[in-house]
């Protein structure tokens, strides 16, 4: 089982190195196969670890395997160690499983691209980094995986580096993630000062409330940056510049969910800092509303799905913030299924329409791509949380947990979640009806070409099919009121803080279903049957289109001042120091020399006077001293 976990971690890394070193000697397709195979091997390793853990009793399910000591500083040390416990195995299965499917899909999607090998090397690197993150046995290694995931994301978003917009988006993503890295590092410094260790265990130790709050805040900063929650969310929509499988894997299924994983993994410290946990839930709720609103006006197919990701992660943050850890993780898993499905189906559409992503040019694709239509429908229904699809089971239990959290705050979160459900139904089916229903648009009639029936076609079709099936049945693993194996599985790692009453569960289920269906109905009447018109409120439209002016605000507050300040420093301090210091040194030396030279008058009289007076002074001094 330990071997299984190590193989799971290292197999994608081996593939990445092999592809990098192989260079042009290997064919592009071979690189794709290698990367995909390594991910499937990783999945096999994860399954082996899972089976191994199943064989053990509840309390015994925590194994730490150390390779060697990675870093030391006096008495502090951290090892290169992986942790095999229910939570990490859960994430390993999701990451390697969904990852393998998406990398397989990429073989078809990226076919024909000039630099496929580079792409697959980066994808393998990403899968390795994400597995490192979830398998890390201590906080330092988790931060290492965290940073590497950010790096892979930069490399993949900027994959088409001839495009300035892609390069800029990649840099933005990395820098915002770096802000999160910095806050996490500060939290770690505090932990080292207080506990001299970064093992997961010390989070359970006793800390003063200030220390606990600061550590939790630092961790939350990292989580917020990685999961694109407000206020560090502006990088995610821009990240859609990358290829669609990248959006599916990194910006839907795995990397952006790392923040949720972090909170669940370090829940011990969040429980000591309840205000910060509440803050996490609050940010999640805010994000899910804001993202849902913005998604209503987006015209790029991928951006709608991106904002929907932001919104769904908001739900997970609400779940983790109120202490319903197993439910947050369950929603993470189902979300991975249906969101990756949606992205991949969208990818098929984009491919079929010669890389067009503007939904205003689409329409009536239902007849032209029927299987993709059904996949997209399944994904959309799962997203809105309609019974019996996956999202239904996971989302509603989070709402119930919010209600069980109690107090006005819990009800506020609950209400926000419900409104979010309405919005989800609205924007998801707005997208669905615009793209798939109606008559085929002029653009579609001109450019549409169907999928090929070869390796490329298979690699695009089968993963989508598998995920569609999972989106249908995947949710049945847990139905909170009646059976909850996920919760039991994760209980030893993260005991949930709240257990909602039955009536809370059923009420949330009923309301959420109702609101979801109403959202779908409204979307149908506007975009499907075209009975109503979209209300035109200019200022609202503009605000939503400008994404609540966050980008402009950040530009004004951070980027422009940084540039201004740097230029100011250069002109005001640096240039004087460099240029003037050299010149001044020379001038001053010359002036000093000139000053001294004035003693040389050239007149004998002066010199004699000098000698005479010095002798006189010396004589007096000697006489006195004697």
């Amino acid at each position, binding site marked *: 089982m330990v071997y299984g976990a190590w193989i799971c971690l290292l197999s994608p890394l081996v593939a990445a190195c092999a592809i990098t070193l192989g260079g042009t000697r290997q064919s592009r397709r071979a690189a794709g196969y290698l990367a995909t195979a390594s991910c499937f091997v990783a999945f096999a390793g994860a399954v082996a670890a899972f089976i191994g853990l199943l064989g053990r009793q509840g309390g015994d399910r925590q194994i730490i395997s150390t390779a060697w000591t990675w870093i030391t500083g006096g008495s502090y040390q951290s090892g290169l160690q992986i942790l095999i416990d229910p939570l990490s195995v859960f994430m390993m299965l999701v990451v390697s499983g969904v990852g393998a499917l998406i990398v397989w899909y990429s073989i078809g999607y990226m076919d024909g691209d000039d630099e496929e090998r580079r792409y697959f090397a980066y994808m393998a690197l990403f899968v390795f980094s994400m597995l490192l993150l979830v398998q890390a046995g201590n906080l330092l290694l988790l931060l290492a995986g965290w940073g590497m995931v950010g790096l892979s994301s930069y490399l993949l978003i900027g994959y088409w580096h001839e495009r300035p917009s892609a390069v800029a988006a990649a840099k933005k993503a990395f820098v915002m993630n770096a802000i999160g890295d910095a806050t996490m590092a500060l939290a770690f410094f505090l932990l080292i000062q207080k506990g001299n260790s970064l093992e997961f265990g010390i989070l359970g130790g006793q800390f003063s409330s200030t220390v606990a709050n600061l550590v939790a805040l630092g961790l939350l900063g990292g989580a917020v940056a990685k999961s694109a929650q407000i206020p560090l969310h502006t990088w995610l929509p821009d990240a859609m510049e990358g290829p669609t499988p990248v959006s599916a894997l990194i910006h839907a299924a795995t990397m952006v969910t790392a923040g949720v994983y972090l909170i669940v993994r370090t829940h011990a410290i969040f429980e000591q800092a309840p205000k910060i946990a509440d803050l996490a839930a609050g940010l999640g709720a805010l994000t899910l509303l804001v993202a849902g609103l913005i998604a209503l006006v987006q015209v790029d197919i991928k951006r709608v799905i991106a904002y929907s990701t932001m919104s769904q992660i908001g739900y997970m943050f609400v779940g983790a913030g109120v202490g319903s850890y197993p439910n947050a993780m369950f929603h993470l898993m189902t979300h991975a299924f249906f969101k990756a499905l949606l992205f991949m189906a969208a990818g098929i559409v984009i491919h079929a329409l010669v890389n067009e992503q503007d939904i205003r040019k689409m329409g009536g694709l239902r007849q032209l791509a029927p299987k993709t239509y059904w996949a997209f429908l399944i994904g959309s229904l799962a997203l809105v949380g309609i019974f019996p699809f996956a999202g239904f089971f996971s989302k509603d239990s989070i709402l119930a947990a919010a209600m069980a959290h109690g107090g006005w705050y819990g009800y506020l979160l609950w209400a926000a979640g419900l409104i979010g459900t309405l919005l989800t139904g609205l924007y998801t089916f707005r997208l669905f009806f615009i793209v798939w229903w109606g008559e085929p648009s002029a653009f579609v009639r001109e450019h549409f070409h169907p999928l090929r029936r070869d390796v490329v076609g298979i690699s695009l079709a089968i993963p989508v099919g598998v995920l569609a099936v999972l989106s249908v049945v995947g949710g049945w693993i847990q139905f909170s009121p009646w059976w909850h194996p996920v919760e039991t599985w994760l209980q030893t790692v993260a005991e949930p803080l709240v257990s909602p009453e039955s009536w809370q569960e059923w009420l949330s289920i009923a309301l959420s279903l109702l609101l979801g269906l109403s959202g779908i109905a409204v979307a149908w009447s506007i975009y499907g049957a075209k009975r109503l018109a979209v209300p035109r409120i200019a200022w609202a439209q503009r605000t939503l289109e400008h994404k609540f002016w966050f980008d402009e605000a950040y530009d004004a507050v951070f980027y422009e001042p940084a540039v201004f300040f740097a230029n100011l420093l250069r002109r005001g301090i640096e240039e004087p120091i460099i240029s003037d210091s050299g010149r001044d040194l020379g001038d001053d030396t010359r002036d000093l020399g000139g000053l001294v030279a004035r003693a040389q008058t050239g*007149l*004998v*009289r002066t010199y*004699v006077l000098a000698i005479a007076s010095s002798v006189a002074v010396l004589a007096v001094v000697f006489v006195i001293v004697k």
Partner: protein
Amino acid sequence: MTALLGPEISWYLAVSGFLFATGALGVLLRRNPLIVLLSLEIMLNGGNLALIGFSRNLGDGGGQIFALAVMAVAASEVVVGLGLVVALNRKRVTLDVDRLNTLRG
């Protein structure tokens, strides 16, 4: 040694000091380089007198020998100095120490 004849040492020193002072004043206050050289000689001789006086007083012959050395040095220095003054005169340069300052820094 038998009893010393002549004035006491203080008289010699007084004359020596007087000569030295006169010479010093001459070096400082006169403008003609020849006079400056002359005053320099007077200073040297004042010093010589002091040396000889002490030599006689303390019975040490070294003072007189040193006085002879001083005279030798004075002679060589006068040769150089006079040579410079004669050269200056030949070049029709004003013989005024206050105006000879080409060696200024």
